[in-house]
Structure formats: structure tokens, C-alpha cells
């Protein structure tokens, strides 16, 4: 036998008794194709994410089934909401948040990340709008996560990013303070990050410039 019985039993024990599993699989989607001048059009374009999420969930379940190893969470990282809010109003932020949260629930994605802003070199309007609506967006959702990046190696520490958040009653460990809703659901979480890579939130959820055009982009082309 290629493997001894002891080896096979050792692996089985790790998987069944010691809770060895795959913590998470993260899909990072470039959603910049959905940026539009108004909320309605933005949400409509974001709807096309549904097909992608469906295929993602199916693929993860297939891999988990094939190997017989539990995959605990499925996560999706979208382009930072900051970019959407550059051309939208502050109130639109929580609307997008709830929409993404709804998509996550519909397609059984455990976390959707991207309520994020990069404030290491001062604030753009979009970044400021994310910061101002952060608590509301996270308190009204259960699967949404985000982050504020308040420093970078190039720009140093932008203390105002830190202060702006603290002024909104968010403590260092916001999970402890953000409200629970009536069902006891807690918002998924917020880190105030420094020197972060350009990620919406999750490890593996890099938002890179360039790269292959997403399906959403291609679908937009067909519409036009």
C-alpha cells in the first residue's frame, strides 16, 4: 500500500477528532463595473454578481465533497465601497451594504467584505462617506465586513482616519460595542488597519489594479 494504515488513521484522526479543516475560501471579485452615477443603477449592476456567487458556492462544495474535508466559511471580497461612494451620496452607503448582505444571505456566502476605505493619505469624499456610515452599515447587516486603512509605508500614519472612527463611538475592538439586532445577530466586524495591503478586508481578497476583466465587465459590454 502506498500509505500505511497508521498514516491513514493519523490523517483521519486529524480530520475527525482534532477538527482539522479548511477555515475559509475567499473569492475576490472586481466589482468596479458596477460603479454608476446613481444608487439604482449601481444595485442593478451588482445583481449580476449572483451568477458568480452561485458558481463559487458550487465549486467550493464540490471540492469539499471530493476531498471529504470541511470548508468552514465561504467569503467574497468586493471592490472597496469607497470607490462607489465617490460619486454617490452618504446615505447610499448603507443601502449598498444591505444589498450586498442580502446577496450573501441569498447565495449562502458567510462573509462579504468590502465596506472599506483607504484613508492613509487623507480622505477622498468616498472614504469620508465610508467612515461616516461605517457603524450604520455594519449594524444593519450580519455578513458584511470592512476595514479602514489608516496608514501606509509611503504616507505614514493618517491620525485623522483613526480619530474620525473613534469619534463615531467605535472602540478599538468594535465587535464588542457594535449593536446586536433583535435576533442576536452581530455585525461581522471591522478592523482599523495600518500599513495594510490594498485589500477590501479578507486575507486573499486583494483588490488589484489591472488583471483580467471580470464577467460583470463583459456583461456590461453586451448590454451597451
Amino acid at each position: 500500500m502506498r500509505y500505511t494504515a497508521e498514516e491513514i488513521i493519523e490523517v483521519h484522526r486529524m480530520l475527525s477528532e482534532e477538527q482539522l479543516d479548511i477555515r475559509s475560501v475567499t473569492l475576490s471579485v472586481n466589482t468596479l463595473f458596477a460603479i454608476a452615477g446613481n444608487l439604482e443603477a449601481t444595485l442593478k449592476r451588482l445583481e449580476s454578481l449572483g451568477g458568480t456567487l452561485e458558481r463559487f458556492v458550487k465549486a467550493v462544495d464540490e471540492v469539499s465533497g471530493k476531498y471529504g474535508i470541511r470548508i468552514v466559511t465561504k467569503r467574497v471580497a468586493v471592490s472597496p465601497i469607497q470607490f462607489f461612494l465617490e460619486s454617490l451620496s452618504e446615505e447610499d452607503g448603507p443601502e449598498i451594504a444591505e444589498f450586498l448582505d442580502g446577496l450573501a444571505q441569498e447565495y449562502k456566502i458567510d462573509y462579504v467584505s468590502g465596506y472599506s476605505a483607504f484613508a492613509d493619505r487623507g480622505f477622498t469624499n468616498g472614504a469620508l462617506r465610508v467612515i461616516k456610515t461605517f457603524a450604520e452599515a455594519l449594524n444593519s447587516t450580519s455578513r458584511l465586513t470592512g476595514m479602514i486603512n489608516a496608514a501606509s509605508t509611503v504616507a505614514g500614519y493618517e491620525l485623522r482616519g483613526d480619530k474620525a472612527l473613534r469619534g463615531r463611538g467605535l472602540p478599538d475592538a468594535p465587535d464588542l460595542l457594535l449593536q446586536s439586532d433583535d435576533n442576536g445577530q452581530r455585525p461581522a466586524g471591522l478592523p482599523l488597519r495600518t500599513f495594510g495591503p490594498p485589500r477590501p478586508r479578507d486575507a486573499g481578497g486583494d483588490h488589484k489594479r489591472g488583471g483580467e476583466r471580470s464577467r460583470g465587465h463583459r456583461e456590461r459590454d453586451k448590454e451597451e
Partner: protein
Amino acid sequence: MVVGADRPGIVAGIASKLAENNANIIDISQTVVRGIFAMVMVVDISQCKVSLAELRRQLQEKGKELGVEVQAYHEEVFRYMERV
């Protein structure tokens, strides 16, 4: 792999379920883990009629009838965890 109290019919029950699905047994070994009977089978599923997930489900159902716990993993799991 099959874990549980040793009794007649376990090998036959599991083997017939594998044969039903056209899965070929390559090797069988038996050992005792912490006083519990464990049977390890290496099975070729390249000609198998169903997916590994479905085969696992069927084997676990059979295992319940036989009073044993059945688990099925893809060979790659052992390759990545036990070989450098």
C-alpha cells in the same frame, strides 16, 4: 476507512457497495486503533459510476446498517499530508 466493532459481514457489505458503483478495491488492511477495529481500504474510483461525495454518502449509509463508521477521503489528502 471503516471504524467500529468487528463483526461478520463488514467487509462483504462495504465491498459489495463498492462493486455496485464499479469502484475497484486495490488493497485492504486491518488494524486495531485504541481497542477499536479499523479497516483501511484503498479504492480505485477512476471507473466509478458516481462522484466521491455520492459514494461516501452511500458507504456511510451502508455503514449505519452495519453499525460501523465509514469515512472516505481522496488519495490526494494523504499525499499532501503524509508526503513531502
